[in-house]
């Protein structure tokens, strides 16, 4: 009697196991829904939150100044051009640094200011996210990794900056820029045609959790 019971129980356990599978932990934010709220300090040490930009279109750009893919867009002036065009149009452009201290691309406030000035960036602000809280909330994987949030605070684009996944500056020629296209769709009140694409670049340098 005993061993039969053991077998039955073991079989039950084996069958029940797959049913007990996962509430998935870190998953991507959802298109068309409210973009994850966040608060982070900017390069001047001031706390900035997504909520304060309600009513304006927001672009989030993950960056790491040591990453060759980021350098492709900054050394060529491509990223600054996009920023200038967007901000001139009333768009809020936030550049986020999620590199942990000691990892590639980490900058403190002064460092971020200096980098922004030197690069001639036209972003609205640089946000410092050394603990990766904002990065994890958006499931940001690469630098660059781009997000567009509409005036109602809904996420309307996430993914790559363009369709040429390469660190080679010559790949900029003829590339289709997804962020430009998404901003144009948002401005025209259309649904974003290409709302999710594969982000490409270096991995975001999240440190160990602490």
């Amino acid at each position, binding site marked *: 009697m*005993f*061993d039969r*019971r*053991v*077998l039955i*129980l*073991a079989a039950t*356990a*084996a*069958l029940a*196991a*797959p049913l*007990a*599978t*996962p*509430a*998935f*932990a*870190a*998953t*991507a934010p*959802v*298109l068309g829904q409210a973009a994850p709220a966040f608060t982070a300090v900017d390069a001047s040490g001031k706390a900035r939150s997504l909520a304060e930009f309600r009513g304006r279109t927001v672009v989030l750009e993950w960056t790491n100044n*040591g*990453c*060759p*893919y980021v350098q492709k867009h900054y050394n060529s002036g491509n990223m600054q051009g996009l920023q200038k065009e967007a901000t001139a149009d009333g768009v809020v452009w936030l550049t986020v640094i999620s590199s942990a201290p000691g*990892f*590639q691309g980490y900058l403190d406030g002064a460092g971020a200011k200096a980098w922004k000035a030197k690069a001639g960036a036209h972003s609205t602000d640089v946000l410092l996210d050394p603990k990766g809280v904002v990065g*994890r909330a958006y499931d940001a*994987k*690469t630098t660059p990794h781009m997000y567009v949030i509409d005036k109602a605070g809904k996420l309307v684009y*996430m*993914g790559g900056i363009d369709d040429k*996944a*390469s*660190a*080679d500056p010559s790949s900029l020629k003829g590339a289709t820029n997804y962020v430009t296209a998404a901003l144009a769709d948002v401005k025209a009140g259309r649904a974003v045609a290409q*709302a*999710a*694409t*594969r*982000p*490409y*670049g*270096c*991995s*975001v*340098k*999240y*440190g*160990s*959790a*602490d």
Partner: protein
Amino acid sequence: MRFLLGLLSALLLANAAAAAPVDTGHLQAELVPAAQGVAPGQSVTIALRQQIRKGWHTYWRNAGDSGEATRADWTLPAGWTISDFTWPTPHRLPIGPLVNYGYEGEVLLPLTVTAPADATPGQAVTLTAKAQFLVCAEVCIPEDATLTLALPVTAAPAPLDPQWGAKIRKVLADAPKPAGLTGAFETQGQAVKLAITGAVLKGADLAGAYFFPFSGTVIDHAQPQAIERGPEGLTLTLTPGYEFQTGGPKAIGGVLALDGKAYEVTAAPGPLPAAAAGLGPPPARVAVPAAAANLGLLGAAAFALVGGLILNLMPCVFPVLAMKAASLAGHGGEHAEARRQGLAFGAGVLVTFLALAGLLIALRAGGSAVGWGFQLQDPPVVAALALLMLAVALNLSGVFEIGTSLQGVGSGLASKGGLAGSFFTGVLAVVVAAPCTAPFMGAALGWALGQPPAAALTVFLALGIGFAAPFVAVAFVPALVNALPKPGPWMDVFKKVLAFPMYGAAAWLVWVLTVQAGADAVPRILAAAIVLALALWIAGAAQRQHVQGKGHVGLAIAATVLIAAAVVGGAVWPAYALAPAAGSGAAELSEEAYSPEKLAALQAEGRPVLVNYTAAWCVSCQVNDRVALSTNAVSEALKRNNAVYLKADWTRRDAAIAAELARFGRAGVPLYLVYGAKGGEPAILPSLLTEGLVVKALDTAGRS
């Protein structure tokens, strides 16, 4: 001029195989041929070979969460064509919370070169590739190289290249290939189920199955892929990627990798075939870690022997053995009799250990995920043991006698009843002691269960010998018997004192039962206990009547009926309901229930994790919990390191926990693992914990 060109190609030819690789900084790259040439109109395989610096990697066709696949732009003579790369099965490369797909060390990416029909034998052509690599460790560096290969055109098919021919053939043979697999996928709640069936999957070892998608946006690469087996294939539970937010993919293509084999498959949307599920997750791998693997039979047996000795001190075992030892003293000088008693006890111990081990081995051979301590995972067994403890305690309290009185005054220990009593004392001691894996036994029993039955039984035998040794030694060495205090009225007092640890053991088992079967078990087991106490008191009365020569049959019958009622009602019928899995009562530490998925998710978040594999019936687990885990210092260390405390409760059977125990070479609890924040294999803590040790392990884990 023509002559010079010819000479040049001849020189190039001679050097083709030895063409110096180009060092791009973090890898060396070259083009290598599988054959020494190619005939007009025929094809030859060449390969782009990378020798990547240690700690760095390059990428598969789908690089995963970040990164970029290796690329090559070709310059070929007119009429020549070249295929795309054949991509070998990649590896998962976790980086923080992300996962990439790629290669480390040496990698060969084969391609097929086809010569035009009008190629001229005797000439050599030069193939030129502008190769681009993204080489990454923690940081990424794009590197490139212009690589050339001089390939002779031969009149007849050329022989294999001595250096690279066999190697490239093996890469091609091992590369993922279509194998007539059928795939279907369906969104279910937050997950995507991918079902794959096909002849090659029937009866295959699916424990290491993993799906590498060709597209970078169909799944979340970093999430675990839960496996369920079916009669003709498997179903993977995947986390959907971006593409599912924009209408979902029309098809999911990719590589299903098993251990050593890989198949290409394309899945279409649609209902999942029934034959791809229903058989549960794959059975646990008996992956014995290095330490346990090196144990060897002798080492395992030695550990088991020491473990057996320590078992004598378990609180529920000691009273039984102490009384038995004291009874030896009752013989005075009868050493021969003492020896017989010792042997009977030893036989009882060994027979029981071997019987339990045999049952355990047979069950595991039958595919059950059971480990040592499995006896106590069934509520009826626990209930029966609780009642048995109570009966022994009542006996020690003098409520009734065993054996001697019923068989007549004076037969004493010399009777056959006495020998049988010793034998069953041995049986009882093992049944009660076995689940409390003593510190040295964990590794030895884990090792044993991964071995052929003969070796496993040897280890259990050693355990039994260690367990029986102290008592048998006392019985065999006259000096030891003589050293025992002389019998006298003190023995009765001693006996009654020892009853109380036994009452305690009974109370502990009642608690174990409530963890297994819920609060409803309490009135039932306590009612059974009261009926049993009444029955044994009546039995004692019958014995006293008998001694006085009065009629006792009626009382004896009443006692027997009540004992049967208590055991049946308390342990056997109706069956105990299994309590919901919610932990075992309040704990001071904020703990979370263990599941492999939970652990993987926490690791993906980069948090240190302390996993406590425990069970209510495991005494050393409870001691560790009270003394070392549920303390302020540990609680602070958890907070300080942002660590999570997971409790894997094995009080009842659990295939997933048994699998994890097996992975670390254990057959039972306790097992304490501390996973570092940066991932990797966990640190295994000793089976006897101290607060300082746990705190130190957590602080280390927070940094590594």
